[in-house]
């Protein structure tokens, strides 16, 4: 697997410890540390949520984006309370895959999902999620769980560990794995049992917009207003903002909004240069970020920014989002025939990484990143470009895995993006 990162750094940590306040202050932007509890037990009151881990840099709680390579490029993962904006590629082929990996990661970890779309029914989106690639141990566990679920009558007599027979059988399949970051097989669909066992909410715009609108006019388009109200309802009803302190198990809400800003949402920023209401989308993003900062949720948004003609709006949208990733696919462009890019399907640009609770951020040094979608896996790699200024200024382009095939001697200097000094 030629992925840039292995998730070795996160493997093995089953749920991270984070100190949560017992008061109503639930923002996850808190310094991690043990809190002295007032009760008799001397240990700190720690709550761990499956599928999250604290950031190495600032203790910020992170969730995986569904692609371990992307997690590493973003400094460990997506911080809870932040927005990940994906600028769609031109024909919208690869951005739905990132969107679905994010949602699939939520299902595998047992998080609650909220899927909003104006184009497809969320139930259909969930049917098309990629299947997780499980390693042998957890796969065996999963098969046994499925077996137990399907045949509850069969009482397999346990010969050695007979005490366990007295324990009640599991009633539902819990999260398959609480590891941080999984790989997904893009050619297979997620098992139906996992979808049914998960807790998800769908927002399909044509259904919701038909009901009468009981809100006073403000400059947001009705679709956005409805979506914000829906999100706010879910957050407050299910206690993601800490309003139900009796709930034993805290969970994370993963919100996915597809094709935001497209004409299907009722917004015309993608259609015209002089937009009638140019602040609708930016206001929506601001209020959304306010909702996220005060709850245990993370959001992914895909947006067709290549259709927005007013560049000022793109700049404002970028400023209002936390992480911005741009996908540029080679289909139909002149780069498709360029020998440098023949192994790849497109470029991935990490345009912005937030500085949360910190003066600096984990910006990766590598800026030339390309992705490819093999039959099964979506991988991100770094294109290493070498240029030698010889007499004829020849250029040597090498990708990491084909260095061995070249006649150039293997040399530690070739591992990094490097310009060779001029040879006089």
């Amino acid at each position, binding site marked *: 697997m030629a992925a840039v990162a292995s998730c070795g750094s996160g493997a093995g940590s089953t749920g991270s410890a984070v100190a949560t306040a017992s008061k109503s202050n639930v923002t996850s932007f808190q310094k991690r540390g043990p809190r002295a509890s007032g009760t008799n037990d001397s240990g700190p009151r720690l709550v761990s949520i499956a599928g999250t881990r604290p950031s190495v840099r600032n203790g910020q709680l992170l969730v995986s984006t569904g692609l371990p390579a992307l997690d590493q490029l973003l400094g460990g993962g997506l911080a809870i309370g932040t927005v990940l904006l994906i600028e769609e590629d031109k024909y919208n082929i690869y951005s739905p895959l990132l969107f679905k990996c994010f949602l699939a990661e939520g299902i595998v970890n047992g998080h609650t999902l909220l899927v909003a779309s104006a184009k497809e029914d969320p139930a259909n989106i969930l049917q098309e999620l990629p299947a997780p690639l499980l390693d042998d141990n957890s796969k065996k566990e999963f098969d046994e769980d499925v077996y137990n679920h399907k045949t509850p009558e069969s009482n397999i007599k346990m010969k050695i560990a007979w005490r366990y027979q007295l324990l009640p059988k599991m009633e539902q399949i819990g999260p398959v794995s609480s590891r941080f970051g999984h790989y997904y097989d893009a050619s297979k669909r997620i098992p139906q049992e996992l979808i049914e066992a998960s807790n998800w909410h769908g927002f399909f715009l044509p259904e919701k917009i038909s009901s009468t609108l009981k809100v*006073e006019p403000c400059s947001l388009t009705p679709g956005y207003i409805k979506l914000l*109200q829906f999100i*706010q309802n879910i957050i407050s009803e299910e206690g993601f903002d800490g309003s139900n302190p009796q709930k034993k198990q805290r969970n994370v809400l993963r919100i996915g909004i597809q094709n935001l800003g497209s004409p299907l949402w009722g917004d015309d920023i993608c259609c015209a240069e002089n937009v009638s209401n140019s*602040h609708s989308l*930016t206001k929506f993003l601001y*209020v959304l970020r306010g909702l996220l900062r005060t709850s245990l949720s993370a959001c992914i948004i895909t947006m067709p920014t290549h259709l927005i003609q007013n560049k000022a709006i793109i700049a404002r949208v970028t400023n209002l989002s936390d992480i911005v990733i741009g996908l540029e696919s080679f289909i139909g462009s002149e780069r498709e025939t360029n020998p440098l890019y023949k192994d790849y399907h497109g470029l991935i640009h990490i345009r912005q990484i937030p500085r949360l*609770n910190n003066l600096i951020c984990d910006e990766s040094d590598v800026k030339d990143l390309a992705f490819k979608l093999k039959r099964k896996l979506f991988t991100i790699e770094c294109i290493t470009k070498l240029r030698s200024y010889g007499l004829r200024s020849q250029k040597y382009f090498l990708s990491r895995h084909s260095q061995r095939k070249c006649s150039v001697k293997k040399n530690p200097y070739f591992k990094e993006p490097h310009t060779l000094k001029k040879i006089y």
Partner: protein
Amino acid sequence: MFVELNNLLNTNPDRAEQGKLTLLCDAKTDGSFLVHHFLSFYLKANCKVCFVALFQSFSHYNIVGQKLGVNLTVARERGQLVFLEGLKSAVDVFFQTQEEPHPLQFLREANAGNLKPLFEFVREALKPVDGGEARWTYPVLLVDDLSVLLSLGVGAVAVLDFIHYCRATVCWELKGNMVILVHDSGDVEDEENDILLNGVSHQSHLILRAEGLATGFCRDVHGQLRILWRRPSQPTAQRDQSLTYQYKIQDKSVSFFAKGMSPAVL
């Protein structure tokens, strides 16, 4: 606060000038480290600070402030800091109708409103308390950042009016200081932002402009800071003084050096 930046600006918390408007501007990079600097600077100078924080949440500023040596929670409880958290207030305003006018009332309005409620909030926060010893030296208004107001539907002229009212009250009447952050959109043609930036830069006494390097990303030099001292009230018979430094941001401080003299190069 960053001691090196204090040296460059030739100030320290004990003897800062009053009645000044400082403009922080960033182009192609993140200039928020300057906001953290001024926040901790004025809290250490024992000023009454009104912070209109539209961009990030309170705990973000608090955690960074602790690295720089100030505790925002304690300052807020003591009454030294009045904090308007934009993100949280926007959610309150948007989903619930408010009885009295909220500072961010313009979020509910269909047309681009004016920022009068926000100005009333600032004036109320910074007005001197009658009958009591003066605990704080002078009031300071800090805004992070003004370009967010444009994204929320307020027109550039309305924002300039707001700045003008604040300047008249804070700088002239109360002899305090103002620090404002505005993003520079650069080659992206954002007309409203350009109007706002030009308007505020002509009124400001000190402009700190954080720019990304023209050659792109560098691990050792994060950007370039241009410092410009101006005298807006007098017509410029003399040239304004300007300095340029490059900087690198570290975990708790920022180091400044002359152009090309980064420690990584030397």
